[in-house]
Every structure is written in C-alpha cells, then in structure tokens.
C-alpha cells in the first residue's frame, strides 16, 4: 500500500507540474487570497470576469503605433536591470504587466536582440508570483534568436500572458491579475503618449482620449482592493489621470451595422461611431501626467 501511495503522489506531482495548458490547479502563490483582501466586496466575481476581459492587450497599442509607421525607439521601454529590486507580489505583478507591454513593442518591431532581456525579466517575475509554468522561456528564447519566428514568438508571448491571467482568476488571485493588467495599460498609455509627443497624430490623440473608458473599467476593478496600502498609492496615482480624463468628451454617433461578403470572407462594419473631443492643452496634461505616474509606478 505505501508503494501505491508513493506512486500516486509521484503522479500527482507530475500532473501538477504539467498543468502548463490546463489553467487549473491549487493556489500555489502563497499570496493573500482575494477573499481576505475583499471584505465588503461590492462587485461579484462573475461581474469581475465580465469587466476584466481584454481591458488592455500587451500588443494592441504597439501594433497600432507600428501601423501608423512610427519608428521604434528604445527610449520608451522600461529598463530590466531593476527586476532584482522587485520583491513584493504587488511590485512583481505590476511590473510583469509593464514588461509584457514592452515585450509586445519589441516583438512587434522585430528587436530580437533586446527581447531576451525582457523574456528573462518576465520569467523571473512570473516565477516569483508562481505563474512561471505558463511561460515557456526556453521555447521563447529559441524563437527570439531567429527573426523568421516572429509569428510564433508573438503568439506564444501573448498566449502565455493570457494563460497567466486566466490562472490567477481561476485561483482566486484576481488582485494580481488586476495589477498585471494595470501594468500593461499604463505602459501602453506611456508608449502611446510618448510617441504622440515625438510624432503628433490625430488617430493617436483619439486613442489616448479613449483611454478614459479603459481607465474607468480598470479603476472599478482596483477599487475593490483599496484597503491595501499599496493599492491605495496606485489608486491615488491613477486618480490623477482619471481627473484629467474626465474632461475628455466622448459621444456616440448612431448608425446601422453593415455586413458584406467578399471572396467568401465576411466583414462587419460597426454602425455606431465614437467621437473623441480632446483639447491640445488637455492632451499635453495627460501626456505629462502619464509620464509622471508611469515613472512613479515602476519605482513603487
């Protein structure tokens, strides 16, 4: 019987280690579970799931900037030499999101030589918050050494990030997921605003203004954790941006959606159109405040 038990334990250990693609398992983080942080929760977990989906993608802002034809600059990305100083799960999760956005920007611009540093930083941080099993560092590092593998590199990078996020949700650690998403968002906004500062562009100005909607969603999630001191500081910083974004006017022009089929491919054109009104002064204030907030957050 002891022999069978030890075999069963071995299988359990192997299964736990191989949950790379399963997204299920025990809370391995040793973190404060949401249930303790969230006394007096006002948003149900179901609603949280509804809100969090796709608030901020680690590649979407970078893809848009690339489509606008703006050249790459390494001035906009966060240095990786401070990873060793990030010791709390709060710092690690927030910066994991920041580096994920930077990795997206690097990948998008095929800067494979710098990618390995960012992969290493993300691996270190994801291991620290116990989601490293979703980050296939060896494969990603191999793919990064060959520029022909860009599609695979992009897919595995973004998929790994999504898997980490899903795992944190399913293991009652949505607080860390919220921080990762916040990190992605602030770095994406920083990237967008810095690019705008260097090469002003109407489409980018609109995209920056639209972040009002994303920030509203993000703060709704983060408010849930305001009892924690570190979140209070984070919320105070984001509140500075929210106050500015409150002056951005966004309204909707009604329209009918249209569906066309061309060569067997279906395309739908959304009917409603959002219009963003943002004054140059307000935009400048948002750009400057974003820089201050982002620089403070990476040093929290």
């Amino acid at each position, binding site marked *: *019987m002891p022999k*069978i038990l030890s*075999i*069963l334990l071995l*299988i*359990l250990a*192997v*299964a736990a280690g*191989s*949950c*790379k*693609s*399963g*997204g299920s398992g025990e809370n391995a983080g040793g973190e404060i579970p949401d249930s303790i942080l969230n006394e007096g929760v006002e948003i149900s977990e179901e609603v949280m799931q*509804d*809100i969090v*989906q*796709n*608030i*901020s*993608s680690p*590649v*979407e802002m970078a*893809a*848009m900037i690339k*489509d*606008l034809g703006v050249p790459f600059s390494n001035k906009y990305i966060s240095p990786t030499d401070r990873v060793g100083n990030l010791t709390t799960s709060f710092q690690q999760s927030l910066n994991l999101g920041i580096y994920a956005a930077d990795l997206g920007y690097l990948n998008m611009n095929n800067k494979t030589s710098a990618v390995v540093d960012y992969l290493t930083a993300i691996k270190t941080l994801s291991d620290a918050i116990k989601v490293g099993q979703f980050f296939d560092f060896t494969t990603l590092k191999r793919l990064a050494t060959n520029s022909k593998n860009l599609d695979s590199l*992009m*897919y595995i990078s*973004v*998929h790994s990030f*999504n898997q980490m996020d899903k795992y944190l949700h399913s293991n009652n650690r949505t607080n860390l997921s919220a921080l990762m998403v916040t990190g992605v968002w602030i770095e994406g906004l920083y990237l967008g605003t810095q690019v705008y500062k260097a090469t002003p562009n109407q*489409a980018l100005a*609109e*995209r920056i203004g*639209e972040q009002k*909607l*994303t920030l509203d*969603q993000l703060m709704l999630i983060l408010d849930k954790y305001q009892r924690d001191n570190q979140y209070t500081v984070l919320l105070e910083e984001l509140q500075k941006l929210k106050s500015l974004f409150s002056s951005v006017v*966004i309204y*909707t022009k009604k*329209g009918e*959606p249209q*569906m066309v089929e061309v060569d*067997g*491919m*279906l*395309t*739908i*054109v*959304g*009917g*409603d*159109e*959002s219009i963003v009104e943002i004054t140059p002064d307000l935009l400048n204030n948002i750009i400057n405040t974003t820089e201050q907030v982002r620089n403070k957050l990476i040093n929290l």
Partner: protein
Amino acid sequence: MKKLIFLCTVCAFLSIALKAQDISQLTAQCAGNAGDVMYLKDFVVKLDQGTPGGAPPTARYALLLNKSIVYRFSICTAPNSDGEAVLQLFDLNTLLGSTFISATGKDYPSFDFKCQKTGVYHVFISFKEGKSGEGVGIMSYVKKL
C-alpha cells in the same frame, strides 16, 4: 483491487493532461488558421447539452474593443465535439456578426469586424441546436483603419 484503483487514477490523470494538451493544440491551430493576423485573445469553451425547448447554453465574454481597428473573430470546434461551435458578436442587444448566418445556413470560420466605436462588446459562443461541445474562439488584430 489496488491495481484497479491505481489504473483508474493513472487513466484519470492522463485523460486530464491529454485534454488540456488537445485544447492547447486546438487554440494554437485555430490562431494559426486565422490568417495573416495577430493573436490577441482566446475563449476556450466547453458546454453541456441544453434542455429541450430551452435556450442553448452559451458562454459570454465582455471585451473592450477599440475604434479604427479591424478585429478578426474565428471559431474552431474540437474534433470530438457533438455540436458545431458558433461565435457571435454583440453590441448591447444588437447582433453585429456571427460565424453562422441562419438565414442562408452558411458557416464561416471567421469574420472581420471594423470597429468604429470604442467600448464594451460581447462575444457569445454556443453550439448549434444546443448540443454539447468543446471549441475555441480566437480574437485577432488585423490592422488599423
């Protein structure tokens, strides 16, 4: 008896591991088949059969989509699935697009959505005739308009 317990345990673990791998492969395959686009998000769905006369079981996801971006929504059904997966995109109560057009009976592996309004949209995934099934929806970035 001990051997039977041991074998059952091994089978259960292997089955879980293989299923996870299958879905992971299906996700990668579905993202690859979406074309020359950039993967953003996947929606892995496993639904039980619906009750007779009732609404088909549906998985729902809220997404924040951005103006002036063309997104591609693709759907793939797992090979062992009873039902065929259908992905629909809604803006509040308005159905914007679907991988299955009931009026023509035609299926599409994906559709593009030219987003003109930044906001929250919903993706619904269900299986035809309320059957049980497993599938993956993929959202990709096509281009900036």
